[in-house]
């Protein structure tokens, strides 16, 4: 059964000058030049709505619009639901998607408002007064100790220092291109923050950015060896991912080419399907063994991060992790992105990061172990205000993934799994990967983060806070709007007006 395309390409022939940029830039071949008619035509069925053509069209002759062709209106059986049934009835396969959950679940960040100082407590002008956005990640010492000479002993465990409370989250070399990785690595080095290799190993060209790299160890153990583990500033054990809690990473064989196969240490063309669990981890005790194996191999010089997806009993799990020897817990909310996930899992599994963060922070405080670990959150941090709200809810730092990709050109068309990303990000086809020039890409990431840093200090200044550390867990700076008692209770915040 033919499915009418969801989006249509509208070409304004009064504006089209037949430059054919749309045609040569569309990897899906949605545009075609008819020489006999001397005009460009489009095939909507091939369009994935990535906006490459419309962004590059020099005369703005192209726009992509939602198709007006709809089935009979039905709240229960939506167009999307029916189309998915038609697709599965045709293919017999699992539906696949890219990027994060797009469904209509509440976004709690949008229902939380920030405080500002008025009259009785002075606000601070960050343009005139010093503002501290620097943070440190790692376990805090339980007490200050003095040596025999009476001076305070350095009993700090390994720490990460960042210029602002943001890191680029795990995206593997393979799921994204070499040029995307280079952009992230160079931007991190310039900004004084960190990026994350994901589970694809680290390309030898990027070892020089080691101080700004978190190396990941995931269930597939792709690309993991002693030099790799020692090359980063921290090691992350990926137990789960917000986009697909409960299952492992998927990288189709078509993306395992050349350097990617060498970096992952697997043969070219083989699908890299990571196991759902780590086959050696079935308890917190097992996790502790892996944490200490990794600490042993790096001579106890690097903090170990344990990343989990935000799921129903995340607080209890985090409590276990905080006792397992991990230095940092990373929690990934259900809106987190991915290069490929089964649609049903992406759209229906996990919980919002705002609630997960609030309950984890509270649980660790209640148990007196909050200082055992730092807490990093991801899963759709979209702006500087999301960062500020997350920090006020108790996070030490935020991971951003989708936002970083958007800075590199991603238009969230959610077809990463096709491997034909027109923006040169989620693809390994050389003609497409060259579309992302890291010289431009890294600059755009640096710009975005610097802009956020300015905004973060502006918002802090408004609240009369001059250090990001003083904002951490400061939930009095937050008020909910339109939230019920239960939600407010979990978030640990008051309603606006209270």
């Amino acid at each position, binding site marked *: 059964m033919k499915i009418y395309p969801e989006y249509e390409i509208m070409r304004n022939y*009064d504006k089209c*000058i037949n430059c*054919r940029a749309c045609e040569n830039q569309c990897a899906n071949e949605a545009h075609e030049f008819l020489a006999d008619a001397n005009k460009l035509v489009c095939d909507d069925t091939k369009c994935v709505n990535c906006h490459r053509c419309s962004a*590059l069209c*020099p*005369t703005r*002759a192209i726009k992509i619009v939602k198709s007006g062709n709809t089935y009979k209106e039905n709240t229960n059986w939506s167009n999307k639901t029916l189309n998915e049934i038609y697709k599965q009835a045709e293919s017999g396969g699992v539906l696949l998607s890219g990027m994060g959950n797009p469904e209509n679940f509440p976004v709690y960040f949008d229902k939380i408002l920030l405080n500002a100082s008025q009259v009785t407590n002075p606000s601070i002008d960050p343009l005139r007064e010093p503002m501290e956005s620097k943070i440190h990640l790692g376990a805090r010492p339980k007490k200050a100790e003095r040596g025999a000479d009476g001076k305070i002993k350095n009993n700090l465990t390994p720490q990460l220092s960042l210029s602002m409370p943001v890191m680029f989250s795990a995206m593997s070399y393979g799921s994204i291109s070499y040029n995307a990785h280079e952009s992230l690595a160079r931007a991190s080095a310039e900004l004084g923050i960190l990026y994350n290799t994901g589970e694809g190993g680290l390309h030898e060209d990027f070892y020089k950015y080691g101080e700004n790299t978190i190396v990941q160890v995931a269930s597939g153990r792709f690309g993991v060896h002693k030099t790799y583990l020692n090359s980063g500033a921290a090691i992350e054990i990926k137990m789960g991912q917000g986009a697909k809690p409960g299952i492992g990473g998927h990288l189709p064989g078509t993306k395992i080419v050349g350097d990617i196969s060498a970096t992952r240490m697997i043969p070219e063309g083989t699908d890299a399907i990571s196991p759902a669990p780590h086959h050696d981890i079935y308890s917190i005790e097992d996790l502790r063994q892996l944490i200490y194996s990794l600490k042993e191999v790096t001579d106890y010089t690097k903090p170990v991060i344990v990343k989990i997806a935000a799921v129903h009993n995340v607080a209890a799990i985090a409590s276990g992790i905080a006792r397992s020897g991990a230095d940092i817990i990373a929690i990934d909310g259900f809106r987190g992105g991915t290069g490929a996930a089964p649609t049903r899992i992406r759209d229906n599994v996990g919980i919002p990061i705002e609630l997960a963060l609030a309950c984890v922070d509270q649980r660790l405080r209640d148990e007196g172990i909050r200082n055992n670990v730092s807490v990093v959150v991801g899963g759709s941090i979209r702006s500087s205000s999301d960062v500020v709200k997350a920090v006020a809810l108790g996070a030490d730092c935020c991971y951003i993934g989708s936002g970083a990709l958007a800075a590199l050109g991603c238009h969230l068309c959610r077809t990463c799994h096709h491997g034909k990303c027109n923006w040169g990000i989620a693809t390994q086809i050389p003609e497409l990967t060259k579309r992302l*020039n890291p*010289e*431009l890409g890294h600059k755009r990431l640096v710009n975005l983060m610097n802009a956020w840093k300015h905004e973060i200090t502006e918002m802090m200044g408004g609240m009369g806070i001059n250090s990001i550390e003083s904002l951490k867990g400061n939930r009095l700076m937050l008020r909910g709007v339109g939230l019920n008692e239960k939600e407010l209770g979990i978030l640990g915040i008051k309603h606006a007006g209270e």
Partner: protein
Amino acid sequence: MFPWAQGVKITSNWGENMKRVYVNEKWCLGCRLCEYYCAFADTGEKDMARALKDIKINPRIKIEEKDGISFAVNCRHCREPLCVKGCITGGLSVIDGVVSIDKEKCVSCYTCVLCCPFGAVSPSESGAVQKCELCVNEGAHPACVKGCPNAAIVYEDRTEAKM
């Protein structure tokens, strides 16, 4: 040098921090937008669609393409430009390091077209020759540089470079 062209300066002053258009085939996507932005550059129109609608463009920068490699080619503004040496009327000269055309003097003999080792000089619709003059009348950056979506064309000062 032809006697009637005496007094025409043929050696450009490259030492004086001259910015040039450089291309990097590694980042060229072959999208040909540079050609269109070039063609639009001195039309005097505000709207590109009005300027270039139903026109076969004749840009001064051209994409060369073969076997998946592409890059833009335009005037290199050589230190010792053969086109200027070859010009029989003094229609081509070097002004502030930029190889420039005086269309009034051009008699369309196309000696320069034959001389240029880069194929960067070509006949225009009016008959006189045309070539890249770095958009000197347009402002800070040449149109092709501004229009390139991937920074494959850059406008830089590389004074140590030798032609």
